[in-house]
């Protein structure tokens, strides 16, 4: 069995309660940092651990913390990003639902490191039932003296609140999240200034993902150096992967960084292989925003090396033949999948979620969705395929926030790797009239057939 850190005690009955959580070693890190470490010591350990942001961007967490403006006289804030909304990603919900105290302990330790006296967990509106679980756990933590005034008899005091969202993917972008937390529309802010200088209420703020924060107490307990030994190279520690799609065992898995992708898909310990004995066709490895990979680039890189579950190995080959670890939303597609249809639903998602503030995203996402809808339903033209590539190119990099890129990449990569399938929809409109067109007879590449013959 692979090493588990975040989910080690997942199956212990009552682990959602403070009592059982403490019996399993919970809240030891709070004790350790408040009584034996300075805030800078904690930041130093996180830096040493090599922990990278688990929300998708993979930015080193310790470095992010060190940017916080300590000269400012304003209060500092830690805000946990629990606005998990990236299609394919459901690990934060799982962690908060099953072991809520792991996040709360992480919030206390991290808030101490940052010098925050008030911290917030911003959770997506649809997770209302998880909000209740967190609120209950927070009440327990207050009761036990881990939150509130003079925690464990020290000088350190902290208030922790959960804020509920109301349905907006864009609020997972950290500055949109802060706007939303201030009771406004979730319009991303222009950067600079970065939140570390001017974030929540124009005060120095750090925004971290749930999984990132939950990892911190473990790093404190085992030391950053030990944590850094897990994994491969700059991909240290363990990662929660949300596995979905056409696999036998969908769910959340904790993996050690460096696990081969092939093992993750086919081993019974993880996804358990493709459902119904079908063949693997494509993979979205890190949530809907990352480039899709065709079968031949999933388990091996373009150079023929085994593809590993690390930031580096998944992005090997750049956008030409690689993808990204992203948020760990692992969506597996079998041979019955229509790539055009899948791409269209993702395009519809980004169109629906664009905040509408800047023109390329506001107008471009809707345009791409409409063109894809036409192609999928047999009303496309050959020139539409290149049109999509061009629209994606004109959005990418030109928007206020990364949603524009997130909308452009899946489309650009789907066409890069599956162009023939898009063209098939244009060439044979009558064959794609049935929405399940590849369900009974999977798409077969004419080019590949020709080359074999």
């Amino acid at each position, binding site marked *: 069995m692979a090493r588990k850190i975040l989910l080690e005690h997942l199956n212990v009955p009552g682990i959602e309660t403070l009592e059982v959580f403490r019996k399993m070693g919970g809240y030891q890190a709070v004790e350790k940092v408040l009584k034996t470490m300075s805030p800078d010591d904690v930041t130093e350990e996180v830096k040493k651990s090599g922990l990278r942001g688990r929300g998708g961007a993979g930015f080193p967490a310790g470095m992010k913390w060190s940017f916080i403006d300590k000269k400012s006289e304003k209060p500092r804030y830690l805000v946990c990003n629990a606005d998990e909304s990236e299609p394919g990603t459901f690990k934060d919900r799982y962690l908060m639902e099953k072991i809520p105290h792991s996040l709360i302990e992480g919030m206390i330790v991290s808030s101490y490191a940052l010098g925050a006296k008030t911290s917030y967990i911003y959770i997506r509106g649809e997770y209302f039932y998880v909000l209740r679980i967190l609120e209950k756990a927070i009440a327990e933590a207050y009761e036990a003296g881990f939150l509130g005034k003079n925690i464990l008899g020290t000088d350190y005091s902290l208030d922790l609140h959960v804020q509920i969202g109301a349905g907006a993917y864009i609020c997972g972008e950290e500055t949109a999240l802060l706007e939303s937390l201030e009771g406004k529309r979730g319009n991303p802010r222009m950067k600079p200034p970065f939140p570390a200088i001017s974030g929540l209420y124009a005060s120095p703020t750090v925004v971290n993902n749930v999984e990132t924060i939950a990892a911190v107490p473990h790093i404190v307990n085992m030391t950053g150096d030990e944590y850094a030994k897990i994994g491969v190279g700059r991909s240290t520690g363990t990662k929660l992967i949300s596995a979905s799609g056409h696999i036998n065992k969908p769910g959340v898995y904790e993996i050690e960084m460096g696990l081969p992708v092939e093992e993750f898909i086919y081993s019974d310990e993880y996804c358990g292989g493709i459902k119904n004995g079908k063949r693997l066709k494509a993979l979205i490895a890190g949530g809907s925003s990352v480039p899709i990979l065709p079968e031949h680039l999933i388990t091996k890189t373009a150079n023929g090396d085994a593809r590993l579950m690390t930031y580096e190995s998944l992005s090997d080959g750049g956008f030409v033949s690689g993808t990204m670890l992203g948020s760990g939303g692992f969506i597996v597609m079998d041979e019955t999948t229509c790539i055009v249809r899948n791409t269209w639903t993702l395009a519809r998602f980004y169109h629906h979620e664009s905040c*509408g503030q800047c023109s390329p995203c506001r*107008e471009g996402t809707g345009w791409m969705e409409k063109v894809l809808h036409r192609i999928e339903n047999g009303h496309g033209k050959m020139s539409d395929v290149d049109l999509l590539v061009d629209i994606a190119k*004109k959005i990418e990099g030109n928007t206020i926030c990364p949603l524009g890129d997130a909308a452009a990449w899946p489309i650009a990569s789907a066409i890069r790797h599956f162009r023939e399938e898009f063209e098939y929809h244009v060439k044979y409109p009558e064959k794609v009239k049935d929405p399940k067109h590849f369900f009974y007879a999977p798409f077969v590449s004419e080019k590949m057939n020709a080359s074999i013959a």
Partner: protein
Amino acid sequence: MAKVTIDGLEMEVPDGTSILNAARMVGGDIVPPAMCYYSKLKGSGGKCRTCLVKVSQGSAKDPRPMPKLVPSCSTTVQDGMVVENITSLDVLEARKGVVEFLLINHPLDCPVCDQAGECDLQNLGYKHGLAKTRYEEERRTFEKADIGDNIKLHMNRCILCYRCTYVADQLTDCRSHGVINRGDHAEISTYISKAIDNDFSGNMIDVCPVGALTDKTFRFSSRVWFTKPMDAHRDCKKCSGKVVLWEKGNEVLRVTGRKDKYGELEEFICNECRFEKKNTSDWVIEGPRHIDKHSVISQNHYELLNNIKVDIVKYQKQVAERVNKG
């Protein structure tokens, strides 16, 4: 002071200046177009993306280029920064894209639009747009909304620059006007159509870069290029009283604020001056208004710039001449 180079032209500007304003200090072709930024409205800018430029050198201290194109209106210059605007093909390509995005859902009803002839989107389209559209889908439309007696809202023409909401926020005491809904359904609205009724609300018309907000009292009276702009003033307790009268014969068809060469108002004017003083006898006429922009009002034609060929030496000469003169 910071030394910054824009399109090969070196200049020194006060610290904290944005790239766009640095370019405006020199003027001419190196100035990026701006559809949402408005220097007199706090918080405006960054949204339309027409002013994107390339920063090929961040600063003297850190010469690395910026990884993406940046909005020149909200990016501050650094000492030693090197910026490419019209000398960068990436910038021109991105700008072409932005113009296309702004136009795909625009009704293109210029023949019946009162803004035609003094429309920033029209000018931008002529300069950077395509002659044909690649957009085959149905254009977005909004339900008509009545926002009072003086201002006409044509939401279909709106490009969501947010300028009018800043006017409502910053010039008037009660904001009843804002942006509702999300994404490409977002619209300027007073929701349940609450009338916009306060002394400075008329300035929304002047800050609107397109024909989304127009003067109801001028509606369909005349094409702007058939009217004669005259500088005029009056004693006004609420504002400076300095305006432009748009006349036809001896009739005052419209009153607006005075705009500078970047289309920005020099001063905001009150609704009384704008909507209620339509007799020449209400005003002291100063003389004809010079319209500086490339506009049909002054020139009666547009210069087509299908192929923008950049001769930077030419620009440098032009700018140098202008600087020497001024």
